[in-house]
Each structure stands twice: as structure tokens, then as C-alpha cells.
């Protein structure tokens, strides 16, 4: 039990970090679309890829627990 507690806290921290990261990507994408509605397609694709990359790091960390 004592060894699992730090692991759980670490997992929580990872999820917080990934959440903030994806949130910031979403924020940036929304602002960019607001500024340049014509480029929304390109922005969405780039945002999706970046979100997937950040998410990948999160999953890698969680599965390493």
C-alpha cells in the first residue's frame, strides 16, 4: 500500500499536466480560428496532431506506472 501511494500521486500529476497541455492547445486553436476563420481546417489538423502527441506522453507515463 505504501508503495502504491506515490505512484497514484504521480499518475494524477501526469494527468493534470496532460490536461493543461491539451487545454492550452485547444485554447490556442480556438483563438486562431477566431482570428483566421478561413484557415480553420489547417488549424484543426495541427491542433489534433499536437493533442495526440501530448496525450501520447501522458499515456506512456501512465502505463509506465
Amino acid at each position, binding site marked *: 500500500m505504501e508503495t502504491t501511494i506515490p505512484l497514484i500521486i504521480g499518475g494524477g500529476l501526469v494527468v493534470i499536466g496532460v490536461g493543461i497541455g491539451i487545454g492550452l492547445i485547444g485554447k490556442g486553436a480556438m483563438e486562431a480560428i477566431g482570428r483566421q476563420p478561413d484557415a480553420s481546417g489547417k488549424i484543426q*489538423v495541427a491542433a*489534433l*496532431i499536437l493533442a*495526440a*502527441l501530448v*496525450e*501520447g506522453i501522458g*499515456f*506512456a507515463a*501512465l*502505463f509506465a506506472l
Partner: protein
Amino acid sequence: MNKQRHLAFTILIFFFGLTIGRSSTSVVEKDKNLKQDVKSEIKEYINHHLKDSHSFSITSYKDEKTGKTVYIELPLPVILYDNGLKFFWSSALKHGKKVVAIGENFYKLEYHDSKIYKTDKEGTITYDSDHRPLNEKPLDFSITKNIATILLVSIMMLLLFVSLAKSFKQNKGISKGMGRFFEPIILYIRDEIAIPNIGEKKYRNYMSFLLTVFFFIWFLNMLGLTPLGVNVTGNIAVTFSLALLTFIITNVTANKNYWGHIFWMPGVPVIIKIILAPIELLGVFIKPFSLLIRLYANIQAGHIVLMSLIGLMFVFQNWVGSSLSFGLAFFISIIEILVALLQAYIFTMLSALYFGFAVAEHDEEH
């Protein structure tokens, strides 16, 4: 407009039905004496679902007269290599309850890790302190559930796309029937994924791989959401093989510029070049590795969340909690449909991006 609403409604009902179907496949004993066991049983059920299995089980129930669990399933061939090929059907294993005798060798399925071990006549399996079996393992080339599903999807894709190509040719470039659904997707992969990332000149060689991998992952992800309960793309060996293909294609087709940018980056001072080379070399391996982890972890995590929510229904066993978790499971199911498409898209997109790096011609400024 009315037609669209009708279609949307039908789709909703369909997935509603799927949620019910899936929950009925996870029937947990409702016996009141076993109520405390429900939690550990759900845990075991989820763990068992996430692993590959030797039989294609559809459902199981408890016979009330004999008190035995009856399994409804398709048996699959078990092929073992242990001083010569051994072949038998997985129905002989009886979910680890029976020992299979072939000649002088005895094999038994260990239920918890779904692997076949060599045993003595009584089928004793010895465990170490971490509850890992110590018995000898024969080389297992069985057609397991995952392999059967992969074969099924491959045959389905072959039939589907060959017939689509034929009808496309016959109608002189106008798609018909199923082709009307698949044509925009194929065109999207060509025009939005392959051409912008790989380039007008070279994209053609990569199209076959990109299309195959996209539809393969998508179909398998969608199959994983049906009550069949297959979990193929959530298996790390499958995603590893897919990522390995991307890795091989990237490095085999790479040109001089690509290797130049890895080992001797132009336009950077020499000291930085020496520091950057190992990092870039690591990047060659990290790129496909992130592909494999991303797909595996996404699908695995999705399945765990869904099955836990379905399991919650049996933990609460009252109207409020169970219907709440049912609604949540339904909602997650719909999200998972999006994830199924998104993961296939991301895998294809990133593969195309890596191919694009490998064949980029002109020197961009760094």
C-alpha cells in the same frame, strides 16, 4: 432534414442497443450470496477481456439445474510447437478445467493469464510468490481470438476494396453503392493527408500503405466496440507490428537528405552537430514507438473505462445508480466511436508525416 433526423435517430438507437448488448455479455452472477464478490468478479472480467483468448466466446450463463457455467463460443485451433507440431481445438481445454493429452505430453490452460502450459497428468501448475506459473511453456502459434479477427477483417477488406475498385473501373470513375461512402474517405486521405505531407511527386508509392493502415485500424477499432468483445488494436503486439511497418518503410525509402539531417545537420555549428546527432538518432526510434504506444494505450484505456462503467451497473444494483452508469456508458460508447476514427486518422497522419520527412528533397532553412 427530416430524413437526416431519422437517420441520426436510427444510429442512436443502434448504439443504445449495442450498450445493452455489451452489458448483457458481461452478465455477472446476480446471486445475493455472491454480491460481495461482484467487485472482484468485474475486475477479473475486465482483465480477462483485455487479454487475447484461445476461444471466441460469445456469452456464458449458469445452468440452473446442474449449476455449471455454460459457454456459448466458437472453438479455435490451438497449434503448439513442442518437439513437433501439436494440433487440437480449443474446446478441448474447457477454459482450463481439463488437461489435454497428446501422446505423452499434457497441456493445460492457465485461466488468469490465458496461456497454455505444459503439465503432468493431473494438470498441476506451480506458482512462484507473485502468482506467476513456473511450468514450461510450449511455443504457441495458435489462431487466437485476435488472430482470427485480424484474418476476418483482412478478408473483409480484400473483398470490399477489390469489388469497389472493379465497380469503379466499370462505371468509368463513378462510384456506386458502398463506394459512395468510401470514396470521400479515400479521397480525403489522398488530398488532405498524403499530398500535403509527402508531396505531389512521391505520394503515390505510399498511398497503398496509408489506405490499408487507416481502414485496418478503423475497422478493428469499430469491431472492438461491438458486443463481440474483441480487443485487437488494444494489444501491444498488433500495434507494435503496425508501427514496425511504418519504421521500416520510413527508413528504407529515406533519401540522402534525411540521413544528412540526422547525422550532420546543415547550418549548425560543429559542437551542436555532435550533440544533436545522438538525439536525432534516438528520434528515429521514438517516432514509431510513440505511434505504437498511442494507439495501444488509447484503445486499452477506452475499453477499461467502458467496461468499468458497465460493471458499475452491477455494483450499484439499484435504479438510480445503475441507470446513471448505463447513461454514462452510453455516452462513453459514442465518444469511443469518435476515438476509433480519430486514432486511425492520427496513425495515418503521423505515418504520412514521417514518410514526408524521409523523402523531403529541398533544404529548408533550420
